[in-house]
């Protein structure tokens, strides 16, 4: 418990510093925020007009399709907010500055993963959660469906954390790739739409191998009452497994760190 308090305090301090740094450049913040809001609005608008013309997408109504997109955004924005430091990790490896993280008496993974929350994403979270609540309530879920939805969303965040840890580990192992995190973002963007639109075997790969489906589509489907009990159990099993594998991968990668350029 004391360790948890210690790390929360560190997270709070790092987040405060990170927020101060971004708030120091208010015009840039306004540009990014406008860009993010525009991108979100354009996409929702596109989905709305699309379903107006087609009546449904893979059997889902306009509200359902928009709900899938909202859940994609919840996982995407929350993980960007929490794990923004991952985007700044590679330069530390290339320059050898990661040494400075390793010599500190805090967990290196914690600092590399959560060492600087993003204020821009933070500002978009409240309206997004309101939109989830509003569109979600249009789907008339039962209490059990809401509980399952919340649990599977947390599971989705666990998978997102696993992905981010894997990206950090890859950055240590290979110095040549500088946008692995963007590849992760592209992979998750498969979840902008219901996973049902993809043909097999891609649908299977996206559900179980690269668990984008479990991460994004399953929480949304749970709220619509479209997930079976074995489906829920498999989702949690895959979430926990992905997290354990990512931690092992991190430990393996740490042993390969060469402290180049330092």
């Amino acid at each position, binding site marked *: 418990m004391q360790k948890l308090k210690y790390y929360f305090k560190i997270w709070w301090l790092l987040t405060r510093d990170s927020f101060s740094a971004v708030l120091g450049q208010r015009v840039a913040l306004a540009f990014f925020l406008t860009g993010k809001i525009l991108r979100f609005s354009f996409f929702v608008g596109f989905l709305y*007009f699309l379903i107006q013309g087609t009546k449904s997408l*893979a059997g889902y109504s306009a509200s359902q399709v928009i709900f899938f997109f909202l859940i994609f955004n919840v996982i995407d924005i929350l993980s960007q907010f929490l794990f923004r430091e991952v985007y700044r990790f590679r330069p530390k490896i290339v320059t050898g500055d990661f040494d400075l993280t390793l010599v500190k008496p805090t967990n290196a993974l914690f600092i590399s993963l959560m060492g600087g929350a993003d204020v821009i994403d933070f500002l978009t979270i409240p309206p997004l959660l309101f939109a989830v609540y509003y569109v979600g309530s249009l789907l008339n879920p039962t209490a059990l469906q809401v509980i399952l939805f919340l649990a599977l969303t947390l599971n989705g965040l666990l998978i997102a954390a696993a992905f981010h840890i894997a990206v950090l580990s890859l950055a240590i192992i290979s110095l040549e790739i500088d946008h692995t995190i963007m590849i992760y973002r592209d992979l998750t963007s498969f979840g902008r739409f219901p996973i049902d639109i*993809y043909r097999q075997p891609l649908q299977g790969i996206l559900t179980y191998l690269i668990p984008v489906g479990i991460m994004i589509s399953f929480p949304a489907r749970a709220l619509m009452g479209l997930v079976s009990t074995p489906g829920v159990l498999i989702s949690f099993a895959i979430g926990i497994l992905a997290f354990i594998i990512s931690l092992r991968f991190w430990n393996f990668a740490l042993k390969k760190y060469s402290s180049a350029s330092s």
Partner: protein
Amino acid sequence: MNKYWQIFKISFQQEFAYKINFIMWRIRNVFQIIITFFLWSTIFNDPNQIIFGYDRTKILTYVFALMIVRALVLSARAVDVSSDVAEGNLSNYLVKPISYFKYWLTRDISSKALNLSFAAVEFSALFLILRPSFYFQTDPFVLLSFLISIVIAALIYFCILFLISAVPFWAPELGWASQFLVAIVLIEFLSGALFPIDVLPLTLQKIVMSTPFPYMIFFPVQVYLGKITGMAQIQGFLISFTWLVVLWFSMKHVWNKGLKAYQAFGR
């Protein structure tokens, strides 16, 4: 001319310095195409269905054409100009006997050549895997019009990139922010790179078509598909060419002002 040919060759080779990086960048493009393909393929499950003025063949051709048009129009090294200005690296070029615009235009052409060759391979591979119904345009006049629209589109993109890259002359910290807002958000959505503009209601379509963005992707693809012909095509060319002229002179004007304000920060 020879010096620009050398720049072309060096720029081409430079792309291979980080091979995995480049391949990863191409994989990212393929992901986008796969998502768009399956989205439209699901919507147009019935081959005889016509929605937004497209049948299955034409919409899937739109998706596949995106690969080639994106490689020709949106592949550009000039995205780095902004950091040149912000970090003071521009000074290195100002003292050299080369035109800065021509330098980046040459690098853009080199990037387009490389990306086009990769896009052609991806196009063939995805074509064999996904086996879409595809509309092959055979009319030489339409193909010529398509090529002209691509040249205009690439130049419009070049001017827009240079215009937003001028922002750091006055506000160095806004380089990436302005690129994000214009090149990533506005161009991505309003150019037709994610979805055809005809999906939007007529009023919105008219507003979007009066901006330069749809002439970068949507218009060339429509020309290829033969969906824009006759007077509508002439009107489209007139608007896009007018935008090109306006953007070209704006770019020259803003850069002349910018160079006077340039303080070589970081040097």
